[in-house]
């Protein structure tokens, strides 16, 4: 039997499992290899609960791979091997006995390219909800309306819930994907450059939504857009590649990282001198 869903908003922190007080995600000595070649190594990081944390740095330094470790999407990549200690809400998710379906229900993800299913708008949200045990019609309907409203899509699509999701614009698709993830009331939301495939207007809308998630969800976002990190993130981590291996150079409150970077590489990167 699937556990019942948590209430959608303001999951009281008492319900959050026993882990550390302020950290939703804790990584210790995380390494990822593809076919024996290291993508990054020895990443240790603690992501504060209920805040927005951005990961910045040049492409290919393992930021996306790191996100995929957190919901074990890495399990689907051929030749990918993960080592180290990852705790999400105190749970050791690298435990082979960890049930992936439950993990992924609690850790939502938004991808670089919007990926709604080739189904109707309604079915896109309904399908995962049904999978996790919400089957009563009125409840489904209420939840679909609520999450679509949360992402500002309800007014745009209320009359065409049964038309194909792929007919929506890119920005709308991405918001639908966000609504779909929110419907499961996850504790953590992973976002892999969620705006990079969108035009500036749609991108601004998504950004606005992410900011509104602050306090309710722990958001970990990978972005190439330094301005975006600066605008929305509470904490920012800077990744850099050396000899083809990514590492976390610096992790600090966003304001500090951008204004008083400790590491010369960070300084060069945020000034646009390198990367």
């Amino acid at each position, binding site marked *: 039997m699937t556990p019942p869903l948590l209430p959608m908003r303001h999951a009281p922190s008492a319900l959050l499992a026993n882990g550390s007080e302020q950290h939703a995600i804790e990584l210790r000595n995380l390494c990822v290899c593809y076919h024996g070649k290291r993508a990054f190594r020895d990443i240790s990081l603690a992501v504060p609960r209920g805040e927005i944390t951005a990961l910045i740095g040049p492409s290919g330094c393992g930021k996306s791979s790191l996100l995929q470790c957190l919901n074990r999407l890495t399990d689907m990549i051929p030749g990918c091997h993960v080592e180290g200690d990852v705790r999400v809400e105190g749970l050791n998710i690298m435990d082979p006995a960890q049930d992936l*379906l439950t993990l992924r229900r609690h850790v*939502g993800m938004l*991808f670089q*390219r919007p*990926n*709604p299913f*080739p189904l109707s708008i309604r079915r896109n949200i309904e*399908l*995962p909800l049904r999978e996790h045990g919400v089957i009563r019609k009125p409840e489904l309907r209420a939840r679909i309306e609520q999450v679509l409203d949360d992402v500002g899509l309800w007014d745009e699509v209320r009359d065409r819930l049964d038309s194909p999701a792929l007919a929506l614009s890119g920005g709308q698709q991405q918001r639908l994907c966000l609504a*779909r993830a929110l419907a499961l009331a996850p504790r953590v939301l992973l976002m892999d450059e969620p705006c990079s495939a969108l035009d500036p207007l749609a991108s601004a809308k998504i950004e606005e939504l992410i900011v509104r998630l602050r306090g309710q969800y722990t958001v970990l976002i990978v972005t190439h857009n330094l301005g975006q990190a600066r605008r929305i993130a509470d904490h920012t981590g800077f990744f850099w590649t050396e000899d083809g291996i990514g590492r976390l150079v610096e992790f600090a409150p966003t304001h500090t990282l951008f204004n008083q970077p400790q590491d010369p590489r960070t300084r060069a990167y945020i000034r646009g001198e390198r990367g």
Partner: protein
Amino acid sequence: MDDWLPASGRTRGRTAAADRTAAGAAWMCAVIVTLAFGWIAADLLWHGLSRLTPGFLFEMPQLSGRAGGLASIIVSTLAILAICLAAAVPIGLGAAILLAEYSRSDRRLGRFVRRSLDVLAGVPSIVFGLFGNAFFCVYLGMGFSLLAGGLTLACMVLPLLIRSLEQGLREVPDDWRNAAAALGMSKAATLRSILLPAALPGLVVGLVLGMGRALAETAALLFTSGYVMRMPGSVMDSGRALSIHIFDLSMNVPGGTGNAYGAAVVLLLMLLTVNLLALAIARRWQLTQPGPL
């Protein structure tokens, strides 16, 4: 043809002569192939089309097939085809899903199955006939029957079927697999609600290819489903497939050539229909299936 390949005329002397000769030779090969095709097609249509009357399709064969129609033959052919698909499709689809969707967790099994199917695809059909006779007819006691013939064909089309069904599944973009996984959806639900419906046109194309292969086969049926021309009463009866009918009429029945032409055209039309169907489905799919963004 590509613009950036040098045109033949510009070069001089010996190179130019070699160039012209090569072009001439390539054209010649194409002409020979086209003529051969034209000859075969014209001959079959010329002699066969006039036989295609409703009576030819719906009457029972008489005088060893010299006269009458193809009724029992067509029924046997369709029965063998149905048995073949009923056996091959579930196994083929299961194997294709495993190969396409579990390539990471079941890499060893996948490699074994793939290698084995590659070899199986090259095994001559007469060998399938021998195996079918030994295994289905004798060992399992089915005798010469539609069932034995259909199952033998199922073994034979399995490699082609699995490969094309797997191809159909692989054409579904990974975006949807990732989205479903990230939402904590079970593999079963992902397949049922998203991947299989999205891959359906590709799967149908695979199915149709398998059907074509089964319809065209003769040697594997010679000593599994047999020659009996009567209308089959059950799947345990022997029945004569269309391809065997063509063989028998032309080799063993003096004066059977006329009806053999008719039967050959019926067989070719069935194959052509099946292929056009696959083509139409594939084309329709490309038009209506927008990828994600």
